[in-house]
């Protein structure tokens, strides 16, 4: 099997989970209602736990231990898409991002349960059930606020328009797409994107919201090859503040 291709796939999934997990955790204590505060914190904990599962596979393949990989790289060494690194913004933006990203995640892990690379297939089967709760939570709010008041619809639409080109960046293709496909490790970003558009369209279609015109949108690319927005490095600095005080401390 093509080890570089597998590692790249693992890194982008793990980094997406870790970074969005940390962004979600920023709602801790600030959620608009207590239940939503708890929801975003629970999803944060899920995602960071899921990133650990992928970093652990990477560790078994010879990479550093998960804590080192998570907390001692700089932005240029991260493979997450731009969507997950953007600041949390207003709650409407965080909900839209949650919806667009978790819909893609669910489809990705559903597909990866059939991966010929067993460690990925096992973890995907496990976390698919967890992500399902995230998707159900997102869909509930998209439907509620997307059919609510003029203000809620207008706010959700504005965030949807803003987040959409970033969400397309989730599906930035790897130089290894062909290898992954021919070895039945992963079906590839292209087919995933098609399924995602269909599913996002199905949910948005039940609301007053309008999905941006795909033909007119250009995806924000570069995240998968370490090119990031200005928002990632400050987040990493904050995440690693404690470990940097004494990187060799025994916990």
């Amino acid at each position, binding site marked *: 099997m093509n080890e570089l291709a597998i590692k790249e796939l693992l890194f982008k999934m793990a980094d997406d989970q870790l970074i969005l997990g940390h962004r979600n955790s920023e709602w801790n204590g600030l959620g608009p209602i207590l*239940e*939503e505060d*708890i*929801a975003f*914190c*629970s*999803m944060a*904990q*899920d*995602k*960071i*736990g*899921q990133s*650990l*599962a992928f970093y652990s596979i990477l560790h078994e393949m010879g990479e550093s231990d998960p804590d080192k990989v998570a907390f001692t790289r700089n932005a240029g060494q991260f493979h997450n898409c731009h969507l997950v690194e953007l600041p949390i913004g207003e709650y409407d933006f965080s909900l839209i991002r949650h919806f667009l990203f978790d819909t893609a995640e669910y489809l990705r892990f559903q597909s990866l349960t059939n991966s010929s690379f067993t460690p990925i297939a*096992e*973890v995907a*089967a*496990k*976390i*698919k*059930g*967890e992500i*399902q*709760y995230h998707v*159900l*939570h997102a869909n*509930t709010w998209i439907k509620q606020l997307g059919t609510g008041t003029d203000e809620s619809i207008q706010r959700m639409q504005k965030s949807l328009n803003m987040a959409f080109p970033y969400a397309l960046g989730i599906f930035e293709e790897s130089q290894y797409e062909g290898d992954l496909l021919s070895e039945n490790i992963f079906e590839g970003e292209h087919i995933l994107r098609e399924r995602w558009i269909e599913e996002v369209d199905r949910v948005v279609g039940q609301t007053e919201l309008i999905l941006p015109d795909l033909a007119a949108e250009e995806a924000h690319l570069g995240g998968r090859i370490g090119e990031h927005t200005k928002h990632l490095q400050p987040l990493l600095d904050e995440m690693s503040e404690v470990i940097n005080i004494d990187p060799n401390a025994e916990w």
Partner: protein
Amino acid sequence: MVITNHDILVWLEEVKDPEIPVLSLIDLGVIRNVDIQDTKVKVTMTPTFSGCPAIDMMKQDIVDILRSHGIEDCEVVVNFKDPWNSDMISEKGRQAIKKFGIAPPPSNGLVLDLDVLENINCPHCDSEDTLMKTPFGPTLCRSIHYCNNCQQAFEQFKPLQ
């Protein structure tokens, strides 16, 4: 003394879920395998939720219990090979959860919509006149509900496929 798998499983009954201290890891359904080679014991387990922060504590509790029974050489391995789902909680476990004040997950819990979390039987008064307040709760494996009949908030152990 020859130690058998049965002995180990009986001893593991003493190890409880740190967040639901009436529920043993056996009844929770997370113990996957016990392997004995001479004096070395290897226990394999799997997490309920992959982000569960109680895993390290459970691993240590297993080691402590086995040591207390004279087994010095033991190892606990955590993997996802045979992933946990909520139907793996035993009937005894479900009763223990309910007695503790948490609603057990619906059996054969296919989660197709959040509706599956509505009208959960209240663990206090058994009423079905309950509302789900949020699919997330104080731990990853619990949701929060409210009973209109006895007017108490309660938690449910979430169904997971």
